[in-house]
């Protein structure tokens, strides 16, 4: 009924909705899943690498995980080309802050900057919104480890654990019941793999289609954003699959 308002991104529908923003969010719900879980000593970011074709040359860099600065990283769900623009923007903004204040940019400040940019595309210019949701994981001296989620509307929230992309509602309900505040990154990793194994296609689940990174404190106050090594990931995967098989038997 309100289809005639859809083509204009920067106006409300009769019920007061922004359809283009909602369509963008729907597009992201089809994209590869991404998951963020905070622990007492760090944050786990997990993402599903959707392999669209065997002919595709495997990319050296991740299409889902990006470093914004030494202390901030993000996982992406949605249109990769849109994400690239925003990530570049985030990187430049982080460096501009450091240039001006000689200090690493506070995580929430950076998230706000990106969200302000996204919001602009819902109110001015007649351009479509960015079809990307982010999970930003970062550390700063004032608030420690933080996880933020942002969507095409430019809204953002701080989360203890959150999921975006394919099957995110299932993932979120599991997180609600199973996440505990005393989790370390070890338990967070375990939970992340468990949830990914539920939401991802089981034939595809392997250390090649799962990209999991850990944000932790390193020696001398450095911050590390490192991929969970294949061996460790395979070990956790085995445990999860064994537990699943046991559950099935009991049924």
């Amino acid at each position, binding site marked *: 009924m309100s289809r005639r308002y859809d083509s204009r991104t920067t106006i409300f529908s009769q019920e007061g909705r922004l359809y283009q923003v909602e369509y963008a969010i729907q597009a992201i719900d089809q994209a590869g899943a991404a998951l963020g879980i905070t622990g007492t000593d760090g944050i786990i970011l997990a993402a599903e690498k959707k392999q669209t074709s065997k002919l595709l040359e495997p990319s*050296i*860099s991740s299409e889902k995980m990006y*470093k*914004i*600065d030494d202390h901030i990283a993000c996982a992406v769900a949605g249109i990769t080309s849109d994400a690239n623009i925003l990530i*570049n923007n985030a*990187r*430049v903004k982080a*460096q*501009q802050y*450091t*240039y001006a204040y*000689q200090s690493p940019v506070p995580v929430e400040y950076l998230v706000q900057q990106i969200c302000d940019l996204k919001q602009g595309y819902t109110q001015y210019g007649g351009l479509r919104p960015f079809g990307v949701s982010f999970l930003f994981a970062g550390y700063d001296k004032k608030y420690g480890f933080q996880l933020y989620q942002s969507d095409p509307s430019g809204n953002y929230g701080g989360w203890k654990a959150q999921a975006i992309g394919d099957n995110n509602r299932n993932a979120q309900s599991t997180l609600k019941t199973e996440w505990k505040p005393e989790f370390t990154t070890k338990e967070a990793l375990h939970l992340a793999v468990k949830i990914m194994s539920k939401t991802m296609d089981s034939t595809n689940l392997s250390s090649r289609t799962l990209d999991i990174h850990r944000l932790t404190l390193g020696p001398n106050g450095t911050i590390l954003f490192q991929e969970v090594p294949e061996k460790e990931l395979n070990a956790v995967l085995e445990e999860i699959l064994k537990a699943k098989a046991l559950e099935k038997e009991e049924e």
Partner: protein
Amino acid sequence: MSILEYNGGACLAMVGKGCVAVASDLRFGAQATTIATNMPKVHRINDKCFVGLAGLTSDNQTILNKILFRTKLYSLREEREIKPSVLSNLISTMLYEKRFGPYYVEPLVCGLEGPEDKPFISAMDLIGAPLLAEDFVLIGSTVTEALFGICESLYRPNLEPEELFEIISQCLLAGVDRDALSGWGAVVHIITKDKVVSRTLRGRQD
């Protein structure tokens, strides 16, 4: 007195066998007054790339912050560390952009690059004219004449890291000890493919 001579300071880089050495004095002054004696002029960009900055301290600090800005973005986008030769070109371009209102800095770039960790050194004038040398480069307008003479006589190619350390230390200290606007000791970094060894030298404390 020229603006480039206001703060004093000197920086020297030399090529050895599979290594480079870079050294600078530690004085920070305003003409005749010495304000600090712990200000090195060599800065680490990454484990295999160092930048030395002589000239007006204020512009040195600004240019260093701009270099760190650009190299941090470079490493995030390219997912690898910047090579010294590339950084040299970057700084050259940054300086020439201000051709008619320049930064009063004289930069020096040194490091190891490539799969074989080949040594690379270069220096520039304040508008970015690069000088690529095979043996040594030096910056710091108050000491250049003295240092050129000393380096020319003492330098030999293919020195091992330990020998290179001796030669570069002797050269720099001899040069700055005769200059009123540089000195108060020195800091020397020897860069090899596995590690960077840094030492602080005590010279004439005047």
